[in-house]
């Protein structure tokens, strides 16, 4: 019965899932659980010498993609393994590979710019954070895939020289392609609205890591420019003409743009052109959970238990908390994922 119900809700859930992770689908593994009890929290990447570039590949904002059926597998809702052939053909047969090649283009560019060590985060929840094809990855890149704490920038630490975003998506409610902000209608810090890139940039900023490149549609680039005053190399890979429509380039052209942008980004980062994104502490964080979430789900968000988090209600779907630790925002995002998708 549950499966049938989920299937009926599939179109809605796909849109919802654009911003949230299908932990419920992770039957094989242990979910992230409350960060307090999470033995994986804080685990680092294997150390590599030389200038380290961390690349967030968010398939939701990749070049050419305009429709959820191109970037979602269709199995995000906890469908068991036995139905795993339900993947959308464009996602499975085409865009997963194209996203992998796009990430590789960023690695290639970063290498041209002088980076020696590369981590790529598969930051998009489709297929259990498993869209990028490990077997097609650049042979020097560490690929971070599957569920994990601080999923978008898992393993990032101060040994990294720069942070790059490929596939940035404009914030929920803006006029971009497939816009969303995790599971929120909006999230503000100290009254300032942040999109996914800016939230992660704030966490990275506390580690002393700056953002050097953001690639995505024109809406994402324009709003991120306003959010990150220290600047970055912008790469506009498509132009929004609707929520699921855009002016797009060929993937080959996109790869050239990403590669050139990443090379320039690393060169300028090494020259000291960028600065970590900082905001005044304590951070006053307010968020509104995604429209369409049930009262039960909102109650689950309200009941979220994270050490150091004191969540206050702020209207029907709103919450607020105060913290000195930007990672706490990331943990809230992690913890909300199973709640939202369930």
């Amino acid at each position, binding site marked *: 019965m549950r499966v049938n119900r989920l299937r009926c809700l599939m179109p809605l859930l796909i849109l919802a899932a654009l911003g949230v992770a299908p932990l419920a*689908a*992770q*039957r*094989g*593994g*242990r*979910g*992230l659980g409350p960060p307090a009890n*999470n*033995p*994986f929290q804080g*685990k*680092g*990447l*294997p150390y590599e010498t030389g200038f380290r570039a961390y690349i967030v590949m968010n398939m939701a904002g990749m070049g050419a993609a305009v429709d959820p059926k191109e970037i979602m597998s269709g*199995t995000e809702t906890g469908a*068991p*393994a*036995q*139905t*795993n*052939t339900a*993947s959308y053909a464009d996602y*499975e047969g085409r865009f997963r590979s194209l996203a992998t090649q796009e990430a590789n283009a960023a690695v290639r560019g970063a290498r041209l710019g002088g980076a020696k060590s590369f*981590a790529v985060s598969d930051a998009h929840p489709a*297929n*259990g*954070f*498993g869209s990028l*094809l*490990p*077997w097609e*990855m*650049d*042979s*020097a*890149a*560490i*690929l*971070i*895939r*599957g*569920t*994990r*704490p601080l*999923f978008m920038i*898992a*393993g990032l630490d101060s040994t990294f020289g720069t942070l790059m975003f490929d596939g940035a998506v404009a914030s929920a409610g803006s006029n971009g392609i497939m816009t969303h902000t995790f599971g929120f209608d909006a999230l503000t810090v100290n009254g300032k609205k942040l999109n996914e890139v800016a939230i992660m940039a704030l966490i990275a900023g506390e580690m002393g890591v700056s953002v050097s490149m953001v690639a995505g549609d024109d809406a994402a680039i324009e709003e991120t420019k306003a959010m990150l005053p220290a600047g970055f190399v912008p790469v506009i890979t498509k132009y929004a003409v609707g929520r699921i429509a855009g002016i797009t380039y060929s993937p080959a052209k996109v790869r050239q743009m990403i590669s050139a942008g990443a090379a320039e980004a690393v060169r300028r980062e090494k020259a000291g052109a960028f600065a970590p994104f900082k905001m005044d502490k304590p951070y006053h964080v307010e968020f509104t959970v995604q429209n369409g979430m049930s009262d039960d789900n909102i109650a689950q968000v309200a009941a979220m238990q994270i050490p150091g988090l004191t969540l206050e209600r702020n209207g029907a779907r709103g919450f607020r908390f105060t913290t000195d630790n930007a990672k706490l925002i990331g943990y809230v995002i992690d913890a909300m994922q199973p709640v939202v998708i369930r």
Partner: protein
Amino acid sequence: MSRHGMSLALCALIAGASALQSQGTGRGASGAGRGGGAAVLPPAPPGDADTLPPAKYFGVTEYDLARTKLEKLVKPGGFAVYIVTDMEGLAGVVNNGREMSTGRSGNSPDHQRFRQELTDELNAAIAGARLGGATQFFVVEGHGGNNFRNVLVDKVDPDAILLRGWPRPNVMETGVNAKMNMMMVVGNHPNAGTPGIIAHSYALGSALTVNGIKLNESGISAFVGAEFGVPLGMVAGDDSYAAEMKETFPSAEVVTVKVAMSGAGGAMLPFARVHAQIKAAATKAVQRAKAGQLKLVTFAKPYHIAWCIRNTFAQPVYEVMARPAGFAIRPDSASGPRCFTYDTNKAEEIGTIMNLVEWAALKP
């Protein structure tokens, strides 16, 4: 071994187990000889108790016959390597549901691709071992997805001799024998209860122990191998698995292919790097084995074995798992409602018990 497919098996088993109740009497004593001593568990239900891969349907041989058959294939004067394969611990793998099983239609694309990765890591291990001086390569298919047929037979090193398909005796150490010179493992995963990628141990709810020492699936294979004097030379898996293996088998070469960041996620090292590391470690392991530098990890007899069945199994399935016919298995209620102990002087019997427990979970 894998737990995937178990949920699929559950419905069939629940139906199957209840059907067994009505099949009349007759099994009882048939398996009672092997373990020696009387079973203290409740008597097996009437009928052709579904506690063994039934020989009459699947023709499963006794494990000692399987061992004899394999022994005959070992050429004297060479160096024979016994390689246990699994899939959860392969480079790149994080997701049990989508990457470890075939799917209902038998064509999950990620599972199919990871069969190639299994073959690649296996081939790297064989190539490395050959460089070190190994001459024969016996490969056990230890992953339940696709019913223990995951190595791509047309892509595997032509010198490999495969033990594939299931049911068969002693699933993850079929036929290991005294003519083997070294054991290696690729693709295995952390123990049940360890934080790591797709951590589990057969259908158990926690780590099996031998004389109080925790053994994961690879550890159980090595335990069986050690009784025949076969040392563990090389293993590869995630960082949690690597730490476990280093603790229990300190003389083995250990390759870390990924860093676990949840039970279903983590940082994946590039495939090419992993293959190179496995190859180098296998070479080193064979060289060290030849130099007598690999230590055999053995346990004092009689072995005191303890395990608990995973509590997610429905009662009818659990009842089948709790009743491997022919072994004097004792309930260990002090450790938990689904816990058992068994004392034996033959490590191979543990392989058989795990095989029988697995039967309830994965019955084809």
